[in-house]
């Protein structure tokens, strides 16, 4: 087909934590790819609309022109299509199930976080309660381990790490301190930030907070 590139292209957005999951995964696997920044607040590109017609969302991984959508599915695809590179998922079936469970669960950090900065009054209070539950569950799963996967950085760590720069903002909107409430989670976040693949992919919290303000304006929220 005309215009179809060979190799890997990642349709992404600079501050998207879902896109960042893919960037970290590609880096961990040592895979070369072309990064393609997409317009999300304005008109979406033809390429994005063609590649993800159902959701019109990033990230999308194009492999020799064929699209794979959704961050966690992209990570699975990378493991399966590139079996000679370091695996992102564990080998043991039960460990894989647990990794899938917690990686999918961590999507709630962003869903609930969005409600936290968008809503006010009772709805915001409910979002705050939900966030406390989500972070509490993640903290409980982490426990006293260095990483969710144990002694080494693994799939769940990769899935959750991109939400860490959003936590200071969520904490402000929700009136909680991650450092104070869940010190183990805070320490884990710092541990991940030191990892090269993560450090290269994440935005600093200040930029994330600025972006939330942009989104608020975009939604017509003026406080």
């Amino acid at each position, binding site marked *: 087909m005309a215009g179809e590139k060979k190799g890997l292209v990642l349709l992404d957005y600079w501050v998207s934590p879902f896109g960042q999951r893919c960037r970290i995964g590609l880096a961990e696997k040592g895979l070369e790819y072309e990064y393609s920044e997409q317009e999300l607040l304005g008109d979406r590109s033809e390429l994005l609309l063609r590649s993800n017609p*159902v959701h019109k969302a990033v990230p999308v991984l194009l*492999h020799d022109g*064929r699209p*794979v*959508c*959704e961050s966690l*599915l*992209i990570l*699975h*695809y990378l493991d*399966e*299509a590139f079996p000679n590179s370091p695996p992102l998922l564990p080998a043991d*079936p*039960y460990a*894989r*199930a647990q990794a*899938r*469970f917690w990686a*999918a*669960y961590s999507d*709630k950090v962003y869903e609930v976080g969005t409600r936290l900065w968008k809503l006010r009054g009772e709805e915001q209070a409910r979002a705050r309660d939900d966030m406390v539950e989500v972070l509490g*569950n993640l903290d409980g799963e982490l426990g006293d381990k260095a990483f969710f996967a144990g002694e080494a950085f693994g799939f769940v760590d990769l899935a959750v790490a991109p939400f860490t720069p959003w936590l200071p903002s969520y904490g402000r909107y929700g009136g909680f301190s991650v450092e104070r409430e869940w010190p183990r989670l805070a320490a884990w976040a710092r541990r991940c930030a030191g990892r090269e693949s993560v450090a290269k992919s994440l935005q600093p919290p200040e930029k994330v907070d600025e972006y939330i303000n942009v989104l608020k304006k975009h939604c017509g929220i003026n406080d």
Partner: protein
Amino acid sequence: MEGKEENASAEAAPLKLLGSWASSYTHRVQLALRLKGLEFEYAEEDLANKSDELLRLNPVYKKVPVLVHGGRALPESVIILQYLDDAWPERRPLLPADAFDRALARFWCHFADDKLGPAVGAVFTSTGEEQEAAVRQVHENLALVEAELREGAFKGRRFFGGDEVGLLDVVLGCGSYWLAVFEEVTGVRLVDADAFPLFHAWLRDFEALDEVRETIPAVDRLLEYARGVRHMLLGLAGAGGAGGAGADAPSSTAADAPTASPPPAAATATAADIAVDI
């Protein structure tokens, strides 16, 4: 050698499924176990009065289904199905072999649970204009699936998995039987054979399979259950008390979602248990 022996004994460990008879998420796991020829013990959960065992095994969601294998708990139907493939790779794989096809199967499973299911649930829990909007949403979603069958990822296939049923058939199929039930109970047309001929044909072929007939409850029971829930919902709506039973249910692959205000007299599971359950 040692790994193989460990695997064999792990595989041989007993399987127990905690589920609910009207939960399509539970049916997915029952069907998958039957397709793979795996023996299992089944424990029916009363969703209005959950067992300590369930709460202990699934503390995060407190939902069915939960599969217990060798004492270890696996919640979330789509995760359980993939676990079955990972743990018994030699027995009738549910996922295709090719990496891209696997990504597609998983993508459409998510679509079934995040988009189509909630839309169908919304039809069931609403009336009037709100219901009309929900019906439009269902039709839009079905049109996307129909397009994939007609000219997209699943073109020319009898089942989404190919000649045999696979992961997406199990996920979409166990739940699609609610479409006919909801049509009957609400009087709304959801799956027109003329508008969605391929989806209609696929569903008919799926429901004719022996393992599926063994798994899906008799339509009379489903109708009675759905009528009861709908009646209760409309009764509550009349009294001004229902509050979006299906509306703010979190998207998840498990069966029941918390409702705004379940009536105290409800002996059976509330609307959201089946409202988000396709």
